[in-house]
């Protein structure tokens, strides 16, 4: 990051990112999709479980994942985010009502771009994405 020239998004700059939404509640997932599209990003898919998230990432290789912690079938968002980071170096923004469930070790391994508490206030997500792309990728601004 100190180099300042490499974006934390491997493929693209801040605009027009390919985003995977990992969220098991369909209303919230669709809302996030709407917000992301409004910001000019492309949502490559909605995954309701950790396994699905990993599968879809391998297929579509997103630039970023928005990850909820408690997923359908009891799987954990941490596990999905960790696999994305370790296997494909895809960064995550964690969005949850119980952020305290992420341990320090998990946090260190996942290196989330942001951890946002539900309920998300309007524009909170957009500002988080902007913040990382502005601070880490000055050439785009």
């Amino acid at each position, binding site marked *: 990051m100190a180099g300042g020239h490499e974006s934390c998004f491997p493929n693209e700059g801040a605009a027009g990112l390919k985003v995977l939404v990992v969220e098991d*509640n369909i*209303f*919230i997932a*669709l*809302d*996030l999709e*709407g*917000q992301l599209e*409004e910001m000019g990003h492309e949502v490559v898919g909605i995954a309701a479980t950790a396994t699905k998230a990993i599968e879809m990432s391998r297929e579509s290789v997103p630039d970023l994942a928005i990850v909820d912690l*408690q997923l359908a079938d009891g799987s954990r968002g941490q596990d999905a985010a960790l696999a994305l980071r370790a296997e494909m170096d895809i960064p995550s923004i964690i969005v*949850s*009502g*119980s952020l*305290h469930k992420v341990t320090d070790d998990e946090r260190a391994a996942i290196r989330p771009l942001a951890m946002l*508490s*539900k*309920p*998300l*206030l*309007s*524009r*909170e997500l957009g*500002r988080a994405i902007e913040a990382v792309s502005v601070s880490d990728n000055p050439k785009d601004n």
Partner: protein
Amino acid sequence: MDEVSRIDLGLFFDSAPTAQMVFTPDLRIVAANQRYCALLGRQPEELIGFRVFEAFPANPDDPNADAEAELQASTDAVVASGKAQEMPLRQHDVLESDGRYGTRYWRILNSPVFADASEPERVTHVIHTAEDVTRSVLGERADAAKRRAAMRGAELSYFEFDPASGNLTRSPQLDALFGFEPGESVTAVQSFFDRIHPDDHEATMAEIERAGRTIGSDLHLDYRIVRPDGTVRWAIGLGESVRDPDTQDARIVGIVLDVTSIRENEASLREAVEARDLLIAEVNHRVKNSLQMVASILNLEASATTDATARASLKVATARVNAVAAIHASLYEDEDVNSVQIDRYLERLKDHLRASLSTDRQGVRVTLDVEPIRLPTDKAVTLSLAVNELVTNSFKHAFGPDEEGAVTISLRRNGGDGIVLEVADDGTGPAADRLESRPPSSGLGQRLIEGMASQLSGTTEVDRTNGWRTRILFPE
């Protein structure tokens, strides 16, 4: 000698410091000295000529009172042997002057008197010497009872440990505490040490050694015992080291208390608190998730609708839900779940309002002027909604699209026990709908503000000089 010979020898008997009474072998009283009369609370004339148990009837409520037979037996033995007889320590209650029996314990000596010169071998009378030992008997009994109660009731055992020899003198409760059978005669202290929980062993040994090093130092032990059957007991040992008067060696004297039930209660209390915390966290999570879902549903609705008015209404509804939602993010931040640090919360709400409203009005700042105040949760939610309405109103009506301006949210105590919320804008530009012509955002918005003020048991004031200023005064 002359003087002495003139004295009535009966005076010696009467003045003797011990209580004495003389009776015939058939227990008829012939004399009682002053001390005796005083001790028994009788006048000589109440005794002399009477039989002993006419003068001192047995307590009818004491089923074991068979003093008469015992006294007769002792007297018979004195008569038969011509020798003094000590009677076993015995209880014989005495009828007091008020008609009640007093519990009395006696040590009694019966001695022979040979008063018939013609038959010098015949015991004619018995001198009965009585010592009232009631106080010491009852005192000892009370002490013994106290010791027994302490040992039994409080799960307490006593020990004396000689580090040099390894001798451990102790009450039987200690053996029971460590799980030794009653018949098991354990001599080596090592057998006790071996049953101390491995995790507590080192600290316990170190503490015993430390206390033994310095005479007079206190001993504090806190350890678990693992019995042969696998059960674990918690124990506390308290004592101090003293110097043995004989050997001059250090010796540790103290008590061991079985605190298992206390520790088990503590543990289950801890578990209950942890379970409660987990439950609160879970409920908290669900509330946040549900609020997120409600906001998302409204957002989706807003995006789906093509009608501009409907979309705007949905956005207003979303903002209201968010104002409630933001309170929940502030709740459970500290121990107190019944109230909210409202100043910190307003900081968050301000950020949120700025972010959601500034799309239309880039040049408008939101400033905050609050003092630290805690409010009950329900009041905080209401206040939050009021701020949301008022700030939204200002953004909508006070400024034109490219105008600069400021909206100020202030929350302060007004000296007494009241709190004043004020939302003010400096919107005086051409776009500001001034004075009476400026309507609230909608009929609903204005009614909400009035309603929320009365929900806070407060009143509203509107001031229209230099912008728009709404005050809600409410009691704390």
